C-alpha cells in the first residue's frame, strides 16, 4: 500500500491553520490598558534600559543604556530637570559665571556623601574631572570637556613650549580672572591634528605664573616628538617655534579646574561657553571616589569594590540578566528619593521587550521600543504610550565634494523632492524637519530663529512662501535641476523627469536596520516619482557603515542621525564646526565657524541665539545635508509609574520617579503629560531643589541693583 502523502500534507495544513487562528488577534484595543496592570507592592521598580552596560565608570561609558543607570548611581554638580532636562542644583547649591563668561564658580552643599559615608568635597570634583580627561582613561567622551582650559591639550597628550626659559604664549591672550571685565580677542585655537599648530610669539607675561589656567594662555604642540616633527615639516612657523625649544608636558594640574576651598569648585574655560552648565549634567562630569579607584584600578567598578555618589548604590549585578540598585541612605537627598530599588534588565529586542511589558513583568520601557508595525495598535493606549519630540534628528548627508552632488542646486533639488509630510505619515513616530535642530526641543532658540530667518530670507530675496515649502517642493526641485544644467522633462503635478542625470554615479547608503531601509526605500521612491531619477540603495552593518560614511567613501547620500549631548542647539550645529568636523559631508566654511565662535563668546542668550540662527541658515543654504525628521520618543510606561517623563533625551533622574498605588491618581492621557497637567509632588520636589539657585540669583541681582543705586 502506497504511503498516502496527501494525508500527511492535510494534517500539516490543519496544524498551520490552527496556529493562524490562535495568532489572529484583533487589532482593536479592547481594554483600557495594555496587558497586566498590577503595580508592584514593594516599592521596587523594574525597567528595561537597553543593551548590557559595558561598565559602571561614568566618565568612560558612552551609551544611552548605561547613562540611564548612571543617573541613579552618580551625582554631579547639577542634574537633569525631569521634564526639560535643564540643569538644576544637585551637589552644587548655586553657581555663577564671571562677566566674560569663562569662569564658573560652583558652591557645594556640605552634606554630600559617597555611598561608603565619605564626604564629597570640591577636591573630589577636581580629581574626577582630571581623571575623566586623562589620556590614560582614553574616554571617548573626552571632547565634552574640551571647553575647559587645556582640557584638549591634556587629553591629547600635548606639551607646552618653553623658549629661552620662557613659556610661549598665545598671541594676544589675556589672563583670566573670575570677575574680569575686558573682552578678550580670541587667540587661535589649537587643532588636534598634528599638521596645523598655532603660531605664536613670545608675549610678555608673568613668568612665575607658568602655564596656570589663570595666566594668559600658553601655546601647546603635540607631545610626541615624531608627530611634532612631521607637522613641522609642513609648517614653517611651527618649525621656527619648536626649534631649540624645551617641552613641558601638559599635566592634570594644568587643567582649568580647582578647589579654592572644600566646598567651592571653580572651572576656567578656554573661552566663553554659555551652554556649559547644561553640559555638566552629563555623567562624564560625575564625581567618583578617588581612594577606591586608586586602590583597585580597573576593577573598581566590580560590585565588591565599587563606591558611588548618587541617590542609589549598586546592590547586585548579574551581567546580561539584571542589575539592581538600591536607595543610598548616605546620599544628601535620600529623604526625597522615592523608590527603594530599581532593577534594570538588559535587552534590546523590541518584540521581547514589548512582551515583557505586556505580561506585566516590567514597569516601563526606554525610547524607540515600540516596533513601527505595532504603532497603529499601541497608540490606542492613551494612558501608556508616549510619543513626544526627541532631541534627535534624522537626515541624509551629501558627499558635497563628489559629483554629481557637488552642485548645491542638485543637492537642494534632492532635498526638496522628498515629501516630508508623507514621510511623517509613513514612519508614524516622527515629525517632518526642515532645519537642523529638532523641532520643539529648543523653544527659546526657535523663537529667535524664526525672526532671524525672516530677516535673512528678506536679505537673500527668498520669499517666505518658498521657504515654507522646503518640506516638499517638487516644482522648485525640477527648476533647480534645470539650473544645474540637466535636461528636465516636466510631467504632471509639477513633477518632472531629469533624463540625463547620472544616477548610477551615486547611491543612498544606510546601515542595516528595518527603519533605515524603510526610509531609504521611501526616499528612493520619492526621487523616482518626483524627478524621474532612480538611485540605487546600499546597506551594510553598523560599524562598517560608520567607517564608510565618516571617511566620506560614499558618493551621493548617506543616512545619518544625531542625538544631542546637552540641551543647547550648539550640540547640533557643532557637527559642521571646523574643517575636521563630524558631518560626514566634507563641508565646512570659515564664516560658519566664525559665527559659531562669536556666538559662544556672547553672554546675552538672545544675541547668542541670533548668531547661531545665522550660522544655521548659512549652512542650510549650502545644503550639505537634507533634513528629514525629528524623532519621537515612542515608549511605554505603566500608568502607575509617575515622575517619569518623555523628555527630549529619555534621561530619567530616578529620585523623582515613584509608584502610585492609588488607581485614581494614575497617569492618564499621557499625550499631554509635558504640557497639559502637572504632578504636584514632582513640581514641589523640583521647586525645593531649584530654590537654592533661584534664591541666589535673586539676591545677587538685588545686590547689583543696590550697588548701582548706592553710586
Amino acid at each position, binding site marked *: 500500500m502506497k504511503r498516502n502523502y496527501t494525508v500527511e500534507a*492535510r494534517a*500539516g495544513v490543519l496544524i498551520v491553520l490552527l496556529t493562524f487562528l*490562535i495568532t489572529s488577534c484583533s487589532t482593536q484595543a479592547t481594554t483600557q490598558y495594555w496587558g497586566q496592570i498590577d503595580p508592584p507592592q514593594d516599592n521596587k521598580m523594574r525597567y528595561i534600559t537597553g543593551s548590557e552596560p559595558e561598565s559602571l565608570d561614568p566618565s568612560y561609558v558612552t551609551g544611552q543604556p548605561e547613562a540611564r543607570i548612571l543617573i541613579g548611581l552618580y551625582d554631579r554638580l547639577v542634574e537633569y530637570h525631569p521634564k526639560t532636562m535643564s540643569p538644576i542644583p544637585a551637589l552644587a547649591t548655586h553657581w555663577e559665571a564671571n562677566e566674560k563668561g569663562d569662569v564658573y564658580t560652583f558652591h557645594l552643599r556640605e552634606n554630600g556623601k559617597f555611598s561608603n559615608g565619605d564626604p564629597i568635597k570640591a577636591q573630589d570634583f577636581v580629581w574626577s574631572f582630571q581623571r575623566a580627561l586623562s589620556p590614560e582613561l582614553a574616554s571617548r567622551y*573626552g571632547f565634552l570637556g574640551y571647553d575647559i582650559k587645556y582640557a584638549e591639550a591634556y*587629553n591629547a*597628550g600635548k606639551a607646552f613650549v618653553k623658549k629661552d626659559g620662557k613659556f610661549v604664549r598665545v598671541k594676544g591672550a589675556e589672563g583670566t580672572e573670575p570677575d574680569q571685565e575686558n573682552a578678550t580677542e580670541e587667540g587661535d585655537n589649537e587643532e588636534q591634528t598634528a599638521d596645523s599648530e598655532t603660531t605664536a610669539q613670545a608675549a610678555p607675561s608673568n613668568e612665575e605664573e607658568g602655564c596656570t589656567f589663570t595666566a594668559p594662555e600658553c601655546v601647546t604642540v603635540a607631545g610626541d616628538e615624531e608627530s611634532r616633527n612631521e607637522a613641522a615639516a609642513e609648517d614653517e612657523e611651527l618649525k621656527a617655534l619648536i626649534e631649540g625649544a624645551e617641552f613641558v608636558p601638559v599635566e592634570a594640574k594644568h587643567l582649568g579646574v580647582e578647589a579654592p576651598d572644600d566646598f567651592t569648585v571653580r572651572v576656567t574655560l578656554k573661552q566663553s561657553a554659555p551652554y556649559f552648565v547644561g553640559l555638566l549634567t552629563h555623567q562624564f562630569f560625575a564625581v567618583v571616589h578617588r581612594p577606591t579607584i586608586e586602590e583597585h584600578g580597573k576593577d573598581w567598578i566590580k560590585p565588591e569594590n565599587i563606591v558611588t555618589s548618587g541617590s542609589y548604590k549598586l546592590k547586585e549585578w548579574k551581567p546580561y540578566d*539584571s542589575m539592581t540598585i538600591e536607595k543610598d541612605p548616605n546620599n544628601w537627598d535620600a529623604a526625597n528619593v522615592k523608590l527603594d530599588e530599581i532593577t534594570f534588565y538588559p*535587552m534590546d529586542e523590541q518584540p521581547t521587550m514589548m512582551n515583557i511589558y505586556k505580561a506585566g513583568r516590567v514597569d516601563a520601557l526606554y525610547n524607540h521600543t515600540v516596533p513601527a508595525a505595532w504603532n497603529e495598535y499601541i497608540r490606542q493606549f492613551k494612558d501608556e504610550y508616549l510619543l513626544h519630540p526627541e532631541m534627535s534628528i534624522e537626515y541624509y548627508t551629501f558627499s558635497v565634494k563628489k559629483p554629481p552632488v557637488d552642485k548645491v542646486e542638485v543637492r537642494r533639488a534632492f532635498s526638496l523632492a522628498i515629501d516630508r509630510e508623507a514621510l511623517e505619515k509613513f514612519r508614524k513616530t516622527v515629525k517632518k524637519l526642515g532645519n537642523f535642530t529638532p523641532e520643539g526641543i529648543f523653544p527659546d532658540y526657535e523663537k529667535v530663529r524664526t525672526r532671524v530667518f525672516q530677516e535673512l530670507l528678506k536679505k537673500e530675496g527668498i520669499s517666505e512662501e518658498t521657504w515654507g515649502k522646503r518640506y516638499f517642493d517638487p516644482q522648485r526641485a525640477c527648476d533647480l535641476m534645470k539650473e544645474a544644467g540637466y535636461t528636465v522633462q516636466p510631467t504632471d503635478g509639477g513633477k518632472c523627469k531629469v533624463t540625463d542625470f547620472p544616477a548610477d554615479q551615486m547611491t543612498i547608503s544606510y546601515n542595516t536596520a528595518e527603519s533605515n531601509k524603510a526610509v531609504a526605500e521611501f526616499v528612493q521612491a520619492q526621487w523616482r516619482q518626483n524627478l524621474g531619477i532612480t538611485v540605487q540603495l546600499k546597506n551594510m552593518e553598523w560599524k562598517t557603515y560608520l*567607517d564608510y560614511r*565618516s571617511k566620506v567613501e560614499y558618493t551621493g547620500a548617506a543616512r545619518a542621525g544625531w542625538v544631542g549631548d546637552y540641551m543647547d542647539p550648539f550640540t547640533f550645529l557643532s557637527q559642521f564646526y571646523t574643517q575636521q568636523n563630524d558631518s560626514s559631508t566634507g563641508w565646512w566654511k570659515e564664516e560658519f565657524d566664525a559665527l559659531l565662535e562669536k556666538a559662544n563668546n556672547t553672554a546675552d542668550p538672545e544675541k547668542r541665539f541670533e548668531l547661531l540662527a545665522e550660522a544655521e541658515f548659512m549652512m542650510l543654504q549650502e545644503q550639505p545635508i537634507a533634513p528629514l525628521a525629528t524623532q519621537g520618543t515612542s515608549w511605554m510606561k505603566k500608568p502607575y509609574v509617575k515622575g517619569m517623563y518623555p523628555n527630549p533625551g529619555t534621561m530619567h533622574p530616578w529620585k523623582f520617579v515613584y509608584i502610585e498605588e492609588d488607581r485614581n491618581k494614575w497617569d492618564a492621557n499621557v499625550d499631554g503629560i509635558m504640557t497639559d497637567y502637572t504632578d504636584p509632588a514632582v513640581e514641589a520636589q523640583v521647586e525645593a531643589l531649584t530654590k537654592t539657585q533661584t534664591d541666589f540669583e535673586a539676591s545677587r541681582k538685588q545686590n547689583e541693583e543696590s550697588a548701582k543705586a548706592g553710586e
Partner: protein
Amino acid sequence: MLKFILKRLLIIVPMALLVVTVTWVLIRVAPGNFYSTERSLPPAIEENIKKKYGLDQPWYIQYGTMMGNILRLDFGDSLKYQGQSVNEIIARHFPYSAILGLLAYLLALGIGLFAGIVAALKQNSAFDYGSMAAAMLGLSVPNFVLGPLLVLLFSLYLYWLPPARWGGPLYLIMPVVTLAAIYAAYIARLTRAGMLEVMRSDYIRTARAKGLKESKVLLKHALRGGIIPVVSFTGPALASLLAGTVVVEKVFAIPGLGNIFIQSVLNRDEPLILGIVAFLSILIMVANLIVDISYGFLDPRIRYE
C-alpha cells in the same frame, strides 16, 4: 581505541589555534572597531585608546602577543565590558547555553525517539501520519517563528508563562521547546526511517522466529541498530544547536553564550570573540569525538585503530 582517542585529542589544540587565527584575520579585515561611535573620535582620543589596548603595535607583534597569551589560556579582558576578563565572561554565561542546549536535546531525543519508534511500528496509522506531519512542520518552522508564537499564546494570551529571561523552571519551558522542536522533528523522522529499515532486516525475522515477544524484538534487537542514524546525527546537531541557542537566547533574553557571542561580534570585541570561538570549536570537537566513540560502543562492527 585508546590510540584513536589520543590522536583525536592531540589534533584539537592545533585546530582550535587555526580557527582562532582565521577569526583574528577576519576581525582585522572587517571594517569598524570596538570604540567607534556615531561621531568620529578626535585623533588624539583615538591615539589614547590605541595605546591603552596595544593597538598601536605592528600587526605581527599583536598577533604574536595574542597567540602567546592564548597558549597560556589567557584571552585577556573584554574590550567592551570594562574590567571583565574573557575567561570570566565565558565561565559565567556558558552554563546558561549548556543547560538550554542539553535540555533541548534531551527533550528532542525523548519526543523524537518515541514518535519515531511508534510511527515505525504503526506504519501508516493515524499516529504515523500525524506525527510525521508535525515533524515536517517542526522542520520547516524556524525557531524565531515558533518562539514568538509560543510566547503569544502562553505569555500574552493565557499569562501562564513568563515571556522572557531566565529564572525558575517556568522560564525554561518555552525556550527549551522552541529550541528542541527542529531536532525532535529530525530525530523522529530519522528514528522512524532507521527503525523501519531495521525492522525489515533478516535478524529481526530471526528474532521473531525464535518466538520473542514483539516488545523485546523492538527494544532489544531493533533499537540498537535503529537509532544509529540518530547518533550520527548528534554530531552535526550539536554544532547547529549552538547556532540555534543564539536565536532562542535573543528572543527570550537569556544571558547565554550565544547572545554574548553575537553581541561581541557587533561590538568588534576581539578578545571576547577569539575566546568564544576557541572555546566553542574545542567544545564541538570534543563533542564529536564523544559521538564517534559512542558509535563504537553501539556498533560492535566498528573498531577504531
